[in-house]
């Protein structure tokens, strides 16, 4: 974790540089921006952490060079606009209706054509109804691609920040699950209520307490979310050989 003086110094330098740098890095069009696009579906609760996507978009823009859309959109799996944004944030905390055939086909094609799906179980319980629904729909849409445990030495844990394990509002399992298509993770399933750590109201207050480590854990959860977005955009870039000596040195290897 960074110390307070270091953070303040970083902030001061950044503000100074921002003042003298040209500010013409706006996107050519909305399609160029990274959109934390939420998934709408029937039944259940598709928006258990209403403000989380917006907060994630903001954190990405603040912390990285990614140009994110600060007002994330939503879509359905049977909507043709599904393929306009290759990122999908699928969250909930309760059982939901079975997908229609069109929705199931949409999910399969979205993944096959290169889309990335982040699933976030906001119930953060050992065996939730949301979890059962998710597994049901994944096995139906992607029968040849089962969920599997993702090791914590995966590039996902060093795509921007150096992390040791997945984080969220709760400490949760020590791993995430994922579906791999070809060489890339196409579906990532977190059961740590990632959105719960990100959700923040309009007054700037965090909406949920983070347990057990409080704010330090929240920071780690935000970093994990940033890493997920970086992985979706850069794939295994940080596995390139040129990065290896730097990362090993910082990890103390």
């Amino acid at each position, binding site marked *: 974790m960074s*110390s307070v003086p270091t953070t303040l110094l970083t902030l001061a330098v950044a503000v100074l*540089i921002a003042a003298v740098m040209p500010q013409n890095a706006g996107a*050519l069009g909305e399609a160029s921006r990274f959109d934390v696009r939420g998934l709408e579906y029937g039944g259940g609760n598709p928006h258990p952490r209403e403000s989380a996507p917006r907060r994630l978009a903001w954190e990405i823009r*603040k*912390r990285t060079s990614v140009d994110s859309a600060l007002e994330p959109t939503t879509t359905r799996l049977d909507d043709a606009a599904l393929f306009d944004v290759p990122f999908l944030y699928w969250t909930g905390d309760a059982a939901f209706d079975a997908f229609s055939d069109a929705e199931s086909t949409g999910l399969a094609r*979205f993944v096959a054509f290169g889309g990335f799906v982040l699933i976030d179980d906001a119930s953060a319980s050992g065996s939730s109804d949301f979890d059962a629904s998710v597994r049901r729909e994944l096995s139906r849409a992607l029968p040849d691609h089962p969920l599997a445990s993702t090791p914590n030495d995966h590039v996902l844990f060093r795509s921007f920040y150096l992390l040791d394990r997945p984080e969220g509002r709760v400490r949760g399992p020590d791993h995430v699950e994922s579906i791999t298509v070809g060489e*890339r993770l196409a579906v990532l399933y977190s059961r740590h209520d990632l959105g719960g750590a990100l959700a923040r109201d309009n007054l700037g207050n965090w909406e949920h307490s983070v347990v057990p480590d409080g704010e330090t854990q929240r920071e780690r959860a935000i970093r994990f979310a940033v890493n997920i977005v970086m992985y979706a*955009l*850069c794939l295994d870039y940080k596995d390139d050989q040129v990065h290896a000596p730097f990362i090993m040195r*910082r990890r103390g290897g």
Partner: protein
Amino acid sequence: MLESEAADAASTPLDAPGAWGLAVPGGSATAMVLALLITALVVLDLRTLRALPSRRRAILAGLRVLSAVMVLLVAVQPTVRTDHLEEDEGRLAVLFDVSRSMSVRSGTSHRIDAVNELARRWAGSSVEHPPASYVFGSSLRASGLGEPLRASDDDTLLAAALDSVIDADPEIGAVVVVSDGADRGGAAIEAATSLGIRVHTVAVGADETLRDDGIAEASIDRVAFLRRPARVRVVVRRLGAAGGPIPVSLFDGERLVAEQIVEVPRDGTAEASFEVNLDRLGRALYSVSIPTPVGDAVPENDRRALLTRVVRDHLRVLHVAGQPSWDQRWLRGFLERDPTMDLISFFILRSTTDMVMADASELALIPFPTDELFNEHLGSFDVVFFQNFEYAPYAMEVYLPRIRDYVQRGGSFAMIGGPLSFSAAGYAETELQGVLPVEVLPRTTPASVATTSDRFRPEVASGMERHPLVMLGADPATSAAMWAGLSPLQGLNVVGRTRSDGSTLLVHPSHRAGSGEPLPVLSFSEPGRGRSLALMTDTTWRWGITTGGETGDASFYDRFYDRVLRWLARDEALEPVRVTTDREHYGPGARIEARGRLADARHAPLRGYDATLSIIDEQGHAVSGEVVVRPNEAGDFASALEAPTNDGGYRVRLHAVPTTAAPVGSDEILAEEPFVVESGGDELADPRARPDRLAELSEATSGMSIAAPEDAPALSVFDATRVRTLGSSTEHPLASAWSLVLLVALLGGEWILRRRWGIR
């Protein structure tokens, strides 16, 4: 019982020797099992005869053995197959070897001289049935008996010649081969025996004592890799002289590259090897040589030419992106999928204004190694992509002139759009502008003017329909339909105009550039020896997932970038002007089939040009007349040329000169393809005569083997009798009632005697 098979009723057998064979229908294994079983029974039965007097015991044992043999024969029913043959008087053909090995000199004359003398002798003598006369080497041709023969063929393929003789005249019964026996094709015995012809041989050069230093083998990797050493292997042979050192020299054109001295034993060989570094794609020509000693029998084999094709083993690509985005993600995914590519990526994950809220030790970020990439290793990349990348924050202005020079020296550069690219990055004010195909707007241009954000489907620019970067279907019409079916792009970097040395392939359907031309979306140019591409959008990823969602086919993105990469990497198949030859090595005066394409930079058939093909030597001097090239409507052509008569490396040159009908400012066009002419080549690599091979051939086919041309008898002496199979018959000699009667009689006689002599 006789079953006649395929007998020729019209033929008149002169003699029917009747080759025959014995067969067992159930197979020899079955017969063996039966025999063992019956033998065991006989042996067991013999034990019952011990009490009898020896005479009676012998009679009963004999009967039992005869019965057992009869049982076995009746059980297995052996068959007798008889082939019915006929012999008749076939025609005689004479085959004279005119390969270049027949030009080898022994004493004061050449091998071919002795052949000519023999041919004249035979032509002067009268025979009842004149033979068919042919010459052979790399092919078989009819030739009048006694006509002067010249040793000119660059190969010796006797088996193919025998096949061709029988194809030409099935009545041939025997062939007289007059040759040095240095057959390079092999399998002559197999060919002759399968054809059923008798081969008489007359050996030429059998008694020679050659004094020759020569290159027995010379090879270079047939396919070599760019910027990697290729291995050259040379085997030197010495014949008829004491062993000693021989210098072996390697040349690149006329330039001596390396030399080695090898110690060659008498009548033996020694090997030299070299490594050469290849730094240009396409065919590369080298040669190796040794000195020609006094009295050398075959000076032609003292120099060999080596031709290799230089290809890339790995395409080295540098991919620099100014920020993570879907466009950068899709391009990396595409580049990464090709296992033959060395991909070096650098993405700017944080800018100087970003607040990462962490110490550097908590980040996986590394410094951008600008000096290493753009100073030390730039020249090692085949293609450099700048994707939505601004140079200024990384103090890269000092490297931009290097990138310009890299392109002009032959590198390939692509700039892809985005909010950080083109005018936003200020490239108009840099040296890089000089190698871009479009005029970038000044950096001070307001963002509202320098970019658009509307959705649009780009259209193929007029006249560019055949360019390989946009003709992704089989023809322009199919390609246009493909472009029209794509998901729209969104947003564009606006440029001033297409530069005079650039061309635009894709345009915005409605917007105009400041120059009034349709707003360029995709443009290219070829500054100096390099290639440059400008793609003014950052949403081509929509040709993948978004088009896939709409049409079910997400492959267009990969298809487009595959073409981009191949064009930037100078894939020969995408070049508008090219010429190739049907072979790489030719003998002197051989026919060269040249094919190629003559199109303009837009890949449209070239109009208003006079185009010719000619042959030039390694110094660039023309060594042949010019052949006019007449391309078809697609720009493709095919023409024949005659190889030079002198050994060496040459090039077929395609030369197109603009006429008054060509557009103003049109330049001459040149394309070349190297090839080699060798009078020595593999044919003379081993100049020794091989009379032993000829003797084996004649022995295997019941022909005469004559040791020297002067010993050859008159043509009438050669036996041209041929043996033909009329058919075959199969008999089952034991498939009759008499066999059973005999068997019953044997068994019955034994039974009666056993009863009478008190044995049961």
